[in-house]
């Protein structure tokens, strides 16, 4: 997995609550058997008309946000379907960090498996960051995972919380499966005792 350490970049504002994974990547793009190439269809139905032309009003189509690396959004981001295609599309577009007041559980976990940092901050702080993002391409935000801070273009600093293990994996770019296979003995031991306690499984 790609590491995430720190990032200074353009933040795109999406002041909508309950942005669901169907919005992030509509179902017609789930037919792929690969993880790559989904960025062009990120937010497809909000981003393009039926003929495939860009809708100029949509934030990621605006010249100042086309190279956004951070997304600032409303509460309960990533709700709905478990599709990991959502973080794949976000990352493939070039966004490495999402900032919102809250996330749906599965999406939140999926981000960490893909080198994306989802930051949860109180609504008032997200409001400040949203305003900062609305300033456009010249206002660049900085995210530092090691220090657990987000810094606005004006230098205002917000601290965020992140699970220590998830942080460690993201900073080091660690592969979960490799880590777990390192505990193969514990799994074997569990299986032996479970097959005695609950043999019908």
């Amino acid at each position, binding site marked *: 997995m790609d590491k995430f350490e720190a990032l200074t970049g353009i933040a795109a504002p999406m002041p909508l*609550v*309950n942005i669901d994974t169907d919005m992030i990547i509509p179902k017609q793009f789930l037919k792929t058997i690969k993880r790559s190439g989904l960025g062009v269809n990120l937010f497809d139905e909000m981003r393009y008309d039926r003929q495939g032309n860009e809708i100029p009003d949509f934030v990621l189509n605006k010249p100042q946000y086309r190279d956004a690396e951070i997304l600032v959004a409303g509460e309960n981001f990533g709700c709905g379907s*478990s599709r*990991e295609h959502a973080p794949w599309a976000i990352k493939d577009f070039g966004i490495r960090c999402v900032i919102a007041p*809250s996330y749906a559980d599965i999406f939140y976990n999926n981000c960490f498996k893909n080198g994306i940092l989802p930051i949860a901050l109180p609504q008032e702080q997200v409001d400040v960051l949203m305003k900062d993002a609305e300033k456009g391409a010249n206002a660049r935000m900085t995210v530092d995972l090691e220090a657990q801070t987000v810094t606005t273009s004006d230098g205002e600093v917000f601290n965020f919380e992140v699970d220590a293990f998830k942080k460690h994996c993201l900073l080091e770019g660690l592969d979960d499966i490799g880590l777990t296979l390192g505990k193969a003995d514990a799994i074997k031991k*569990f299986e032996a005792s479970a097959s005695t306690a609950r043999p019908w499984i």
Partner: protein
Amino acid sequence: MTARTLYDKIWDDHVAHEAEDGTCLLYIDRHLVHEVTSPQAFEGLRMAGRKVHAPDKTIAVPDHNVPTTLDRANGGMNEESRIQVEALDTNAKDFGIHYYPVSDVRQGIVHIVGPEQGWTLPGMTVVCGDSHTATHGAFGALAHGIGTSEVEHVLATQTLIQKKSKNMKVEITGKLRPGVTAKDITLSVIGETGTAGGTGYVIEYCGEAIRDLSMEGRMTVCNMAIEGGARAGLIAPDEKTYAYCKGRPHAPKGAAWEAAEAYWRTLFTDDGAHFDKVVTIKGEDIAPVVTWGTSPEDVLPITATVPAPEDFEGGKVEAAKRSLDYMGLTPGTPLSEVEIDTVFIGSCTNGRIEDLRAAAEILKGKKVKDGLRAMVVPGSGLVRAQAEEEGLADIFKDAGFEWRLAGCSMCLAMNPDQLSEGERCASTSNRNFEGRQGYKGRTHLVSPGMAAAAALTGRLTDVREMM
């Protein structure tokens, strides 16, 4: 010993390893797999030269992409869908996992097939690369959706890296009124708590109204726990659960059954166990409901009117404006006057035999409104066969419904079953998100009885008028 919740007990029995910071390896008893969220995971195994750790605990069935038209044996899938389904065929064979191909009568929606075949049993941990895995919680199994990276992790290790969620209790007291179903319960709970109300929690549903539900109804309730943001929904097993499981192809038999049942009878929340959050709703206060917007929390009784953005606060004001615009609705309009174009009965929420019986009861001897498109998609080939045996298929067909083959169908419209732009649908599925059932399609979530009633009148309708 400390009093524990049902969730605590199942969790404790599945921790294979716990690190100092509380990060656990949770052992997975059943891993369900479908064609959309698994190809990248199998590919990952191949690239790393890894095997499936426990093929006997891994069950696959294609459901999302498959056409539901009667001629599907002759093809009908577009190239991409066909590749995805064929990839599952190949992966199931190469990795030696249990498989129900499209041609098998037992094929259907993964969350209907699992319980039907006896793969899902009380006290298990069940995962699938699909958020509606919560369905299996109806058996008192800890069941939740995972992403594709986690699918690969479970395939390779039969475990998940997890931290424990908090405990939430949702109690539905007393009796339901006539015409009120499990779907109305689960939508009403989301209407009350919001789509993020359960975030960070595992919900245990309890109370007389939940106990009174059949296993099918309980599956409907748990299915939408994810729409309330919860990691999983749970209902403690009881006599109904054991009766449902007994004799299923993969349920234990003989002495193994006795041992299993003895264990299952320990799976309940102890008196005095701690819940971090409690929501109580009176069963008699729940009405037949519909959704008016584009979030499952946009729930109102069918007797209500379309709300106005000013009725809300904070970010929900903008969201309501956007929803009303998308749905083409005017505030103040009685919901029962909203005309519909289409009715969809099916999905992992409401595609079981009891759902079809409830709809058929309303439709018996009647005809769907002229010009309205109506389809029933049974949740599995076996549900379909049973409905035919019970004469339900004839009731649907006589009423003017299309009688389809099993699959996810119009619930997520990854297959040919889709709404067209502006088409308005009364649907028994689980999500009313923008574009969910087709580009610019408009979805109103309802119970099977309400869907049937709407099919007869051509508008959202109070099922109680038809009873």
